[in-house]
Structure formats: C-alpha cells, structure tokens
C-alpha cells in the first residue's frame, strides 16, 4: 500500500492528479501521517536533485568569486612565508641596531650638545672702565670673547693672583678654566664666587652646573641649577635645562 502512496504523492505534486483526486489527496493528508511523511520525503529528494542538477548561474558566479579569493587568501601565503624567512637576517641587524640605539641613549653624547647649547655666552665687557684699551684685562676680554680661553686664562690667572677678590676677574678666570676642562680648579674659584654676594653669584652657579654637565654629572648639574632663583638672568635657561635633564 505504501507503494501507492509514494506514487500518489509524486503524481499529486507533479499535478498529474485530476481535480477530484487532488482534493481527496489533500483531505487524506490532514490525518494520514504516512502520507505526510511521503510528501516530506518527496520534497526532500526533489530539493536535493535540484541542488545537484540546477543550472545555477549564481552558484557558478559564486564559485568564480571564491576562486579569486582563494588565490588572494591562500596562495599569497608563499611570498609571505618567504618574506618571513628573509626577515630573519634583517631581524638580526635590527636587533643590533636597537642595541646600538639603546646604548647611544645611555651614553647620550648629545649631552655635550646640551652643554654647547647652554654654555655661558656671556661676553666679557671691560672697556667701559675707561682704562687703557691695551690693559691686561682688556686683552683677556678680547681673547675670552674670541673663545681663545687658553690665552685668556694665562692673563686672567695673573690678574687673579694679584687680586682674588675681584669678582670680574674671578668669574672669567673660572669660566675660562671650565671651558678648558680644568673643572676642579674652575669650580674652586667659582664656588667661592657663588657663595659670595657679587653680581656674578648666580652666573658662577650656572657655570658650575654646566661644568658638571660637561663631566656628565647630572646630579650635581641639577643641584647647582636649582640654586639659581627666579628673577635672575640665568633662571630661565637653568629651568629649561633642568627639564631636559
């Protein structure tokens, strides 16, 4: 009997039943679970056949699309792999470069540049004193302003020996020595100035700070920069430099 039902269902779906038969089928379908199953089976098989045999241009197009994406996403694979491999030697050099750069940061040679940038650019002005322009102090000033510190220091040393209370001589002598990297002696002179009450008090402190910067002694450099109070000539420069340190 089941056999009948399968064929009957097929004929019903295909429109091969006449009106009366069709109506009767539908009525039976309401209660006949076996018939319901037959109809479900039929639909399922038909769907599958359609899925397989349909002239599905959309599907063909989709396959074309998928092939393209396959190329993009799967075969690029190889060059990428090559790149990864070829990157390895680069990585070695990149690491070396990184180490060098980090080392450079620790060594920080541009602190010297900071020194140059912030070095005391005071001009030694002495002529207004009305003394003969050929005086020793005048000569020293000329050398100092030309940044010939060695020559300036020789003259200033003499003058300082004669009168170590003269703040002007002391300051430029100390500054020249600092410029000549004779930090210890320079500081000795300048510290005395900084402790005193002359107009060079804070210029001296600033110069000491920079001499420490030159020796890469940041702690002392900061210490001396901090001694320079607001409102003095060197204050702004000192603060700026402090920030950079």
């Amino acid at each position, binding site marked *: 009997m089941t056999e009948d039902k399968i064929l009957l269902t*097929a004929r019903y779906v*295909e429109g*091969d039943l006449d009106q009366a038969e069709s109506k009767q089928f539908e009525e039976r379908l309401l209660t006949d679970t076996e018939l319901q199953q037959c109809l479900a089976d039929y639909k399922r098989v038909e769907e599958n056949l359609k899925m*397989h045999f349909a002239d599905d241009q*959309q599907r063909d197009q*989709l*396959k074309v699309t*998928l092939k393209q994406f396959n190329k993009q*996403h799967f075969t690029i694979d190889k060059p990428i792999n090559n790149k990864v491999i070829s990157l390895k030697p680069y990585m070695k050099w990149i690491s070396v470069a990184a180490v060098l750069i980090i080392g450079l940061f620790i060594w920080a040679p541009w602190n010297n540049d900071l020194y140059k940038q912030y070095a005391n650019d005071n001009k030694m002005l002495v002529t207004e004193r009305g003394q003969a322009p050929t005086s020793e102090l005048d000569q020293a000033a000329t050398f100092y302003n030309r940044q010939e510190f060695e020559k300036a220091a020789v003259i200033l040393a003499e003058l300082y020996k004669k009168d170590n209370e003269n703040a002007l001589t002391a300051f430029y002598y100390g500054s020249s020595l600092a410029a000549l990297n004779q930090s210890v002696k320079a500081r000795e002179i300048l510290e005395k100035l900084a402790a005193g009450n002359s107009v060079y008090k804070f210029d001296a402190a600033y110069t000491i700070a920079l001499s420490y910067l030159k020796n890469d002694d940041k702690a002392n450099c900061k210490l001396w920069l901090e001694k320079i109070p607001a409102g003095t000539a060197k204050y702004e420069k000192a603060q700026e430099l402090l920030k950079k340190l």
Partner: protein
Amino acid sequence: MAKKIHEDQKYITALLHNDTLVINEIYKKCAAKVKSFVTFNNGSADDAADILQEALVDVYNQAKYKNLELTCPFEPFLLLICKRKWLNELKKRAVLPVTKTDDDLLHIGEDTFEQAEQLALQQEQASIFLKAFAQLGERCKEILKWSMKGEAQEKVAEILGVTYGYLRKKKSECMSGLIKLIGKNHD
C-alpha cells in the same frame, strides 16, 4: 520551534547574491584559521582553499535549496563545517587520524554544533540520493535532470519532445521510483 535567525545570516545572503565585499570579509575572518587547521593536519594550503570553497558552496546550496536559516554565529559554524570536511577527506586519503580537533571548539555553542551537524547530514543525504539516482534508467535520469534545471516544465517537455501531460506522468513515476530506491538502499 521557530528559533531567532542570527544576525550573521547576512553572510549567507552575501553568498546567495555573490556579494564580494562581504565574502571577502568571510575570507579575512576564516581563511587563516582554515589554513592553519588543515596545514597542521597533514594538508596543504591548496587543500585548505578547496575545503573552504566547498564549505561555502555547501552553505550556498543549503541556503538556496533548503532555506538554511542561521541560528548561530557564522564563523564557528563555517569552521566546524570545514573541519568535518577535512577530517572526512583525511579518512578518504587514509591518513592517520588527526590529533587535535576539538580543543579549540570548547567555546562553541550547542546551536552551532547542531547546525553544522545538520548541514553535514544534509550533505550525506544528498550523496545517498545521488547514488540512488545513478541506479535509475536512462530515460528517468534524463527526465529528472532536465526537470531540475529550473526551466518551466512546459519548456522541459518541449525540449524532451514529449507533451506536458506525459512529462508529468513520467516524472511522477521516476520520482517515486527514485524514492523507493532510496528507501531500499537505506534498509
């Protein structure tokens, strides 16, 4: 019973409409994962590409011919289908069984498993049906093939050189024959 359709249904719609932008999105999300799964399990990148393409066409077919409605997220669904496909392929190739399969599936919801399972069953069913179809007589095969192409049935009758009435009758017979064959194969 009607489950809420997942918002990722958009990917299925994209497959149906060959929407390259969204399909590219699918590839971006899934290609690398399929590739790593397949290549870690005795396959090549080309195998992975084939698997993903097949899986997407399967999804397309289910959507177009069986109204597949996604009730779970698309990505794990697709990946699960790909994995099953690749495992089946390995079985066919008689390669040793895969060591790692399910460890990364732990977070996948029941829904996804169920839906992927269903798709796998459907595919299996389809191959059973096709086997039965191969056992049909030549005339039946011809009639059914033509009927399924999607043309109007009147046109099919014309192409086959028969009347519409004859086609209906013959098609009913062939279909019931096929269904019976499937039943017999199944027993």
